[in-house]
């Protein structure tokens, strides 16, 4: 059974505090992780640069802080990268308290359910697209993911 719907609680005050810290200290980025809670705040450019060339960070910076998972820079073209087929909230186990479908280092077969993504109260099983070992986990339980966002790396 999928878990009862948990609307992710966004820790806005904490995120705000991190943001203020970032500005006070003139930092470029703060990544924070505790249990399944993960935040990354990066500084937005003073004026948006809506021009072509190298402005890729703008989108990143503007993303909802709590939706930002761990970086995945080098895996974009990796054949083992499993990405979110839909926007939603990702769950690592069938219900709260039950064991995770997979953990780092586990071996999976093609078609094994590795995660759930909930979109509008429907829990969609996410299946391994190839056999192999889980060599990276980009998400944690209960975080929102965008379409195309990296979930797992199956080596």
């Amino acid at each position, binding site marked *: 059974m999928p878990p009862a719907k948990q609307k*992710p609680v966004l820790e806005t005050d904490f995120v705000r505090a991190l943001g203020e810290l970032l500005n006070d200290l003139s930092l470029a980025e703060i990544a924070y992780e505790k249990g399944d809670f993960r935040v990354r705040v990066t500084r937005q450019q003073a004026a*948006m640069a809506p*021009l072509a060339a190298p402005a890729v960070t703008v989108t990143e910076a503007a993303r*909802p802080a709590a939706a930002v998972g761990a970086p995945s820079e080098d895996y974009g073209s990796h054949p083992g990268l499993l990405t979110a087929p839909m926007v939603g909230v990702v769950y690592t186990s069938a219900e709260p308290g039950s064991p995770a479908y997979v953990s780092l280092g586990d071996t999976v077969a093609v078609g094994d359910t590795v995660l759930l993504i909930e*979109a509008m109260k429907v829990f969609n099983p996410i299946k391994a697209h190839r056999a192999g070992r889980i060599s990276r986990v980009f998400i944690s339980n209960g975080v929102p993911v965008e379409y195309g966002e990296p979930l797992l790396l199956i080596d």
Partner: protein
Amino acid sequence: MIQKILIANRGEIALRILRACREMGIRSVAVHSTADADAMHVRLADETVCIGPPPAQESYLNPVAILTAATISNADAIHPGYGFLSENADFAAMVEEHGLTFIGPSPEHIRLMGDKIAAKRTVREAGIPVVPGSDGSIDSEADARRIARAIGYPVLVKAAAGGGGRGMKVVTDDGQLAEAIATARAEALAAFGSGGLYVEKYLAHPRHIEVQVLADLHGNVVHLGERDCSLQRRHQKVIEEAPSPVLTPEQRSKIGALVVRTASALGYRSVGTFEFLYEDGEFYFIEMNTRLQVEHPVTEMVCGLDIVREMLRVAEGSELGFEQEDVRFVGHAIECRINAEDPETFAPSPGTIAEYHAPGGLGVRIDSALYAGYRVPPFYDSMIAKLIVSGADRRACLARLRRALAEYVISGIKTTIPLHQRLIDMPEFIDGRYDVHWLERVMRGEH
């Protein structure tokens, strides 16, 4: 009070809504397909969520993805823009069921006006003239023939669920009726999933004149005057202006009062547009658009209102705060829809914008999400910019439009700017003597 709006659209209208949000201190969430990751509205939004791959069915037309994005971003309202899900009553209902504000009319009004036959019946009962025709869906060819003879040929056979010219045939005599019905029904089934047809009088030289209404949740309704959108090609508007070159203030007041009374009687909310054919001093209702329209800026320019801002205000429950007599019309405004198309063949011309330079100065407004280096994706509508020009009167407005079009530089792709330059220099346009068929005739080389 609305704190955060998810904008369920793309392109210039997403940017238009985003600008209104920013000016009102409301946070914005841009949703986008992977094809639009670099789009202007995505770059400027406070938050962004990628909701799917390029095909609109899997992204901008995907209600589940959009509602999920609203949930994970904690948005409290959704603005649908135009096109996509903006006139989808089921989507509007889903939004409300999830406890979010749908920035637009009620699902019931969207549904009512989405059914073209029910819409006509409703407004006719409220006293608005409609094009003479079948009261409802026609059952048989014989049925159609009887009605056609009663109202007189030529007649139009139209899909009840239609729009955009699909499922629509002109019939000039009894002999063509059977085939027209068969073709229209097939097109209607393919395009809208419903084969219901109706028959109505075909007007030879009508203008397309539409009246903008604005209503709050407290029963206050005003109209913002008319737009003349007679310059159409394949039922797509190309140039729109306000006021219409042919309407008198008396006619404006009269038709305005009629639509306001109708919207009031219906308990309508938010923005909406009553579209009419106009011929020989008579208005014939054709349909109502239950959403913000592409051409809303020309109305903003002549009545000095920010229609999107008003739309957000009334969605929050605010009262309009002004009456019909406070709405004043000053000057003249014209909008050119600039498409990424070959200006002669209308073949789509997606690709990368090399140089982009917008015209400026007094009376020139650009609503566009273009920038130098932007890649116009091939997946969506070809409209890439709206040039809106205003002036003290129609002549000054036209002169300004001419100079602004000459200043506009969009290179790397083909655009319809040369078409606009050609059209606005034609005597019929300069004199305001055009009807809904004029542009088609021009394109066929009959001018």
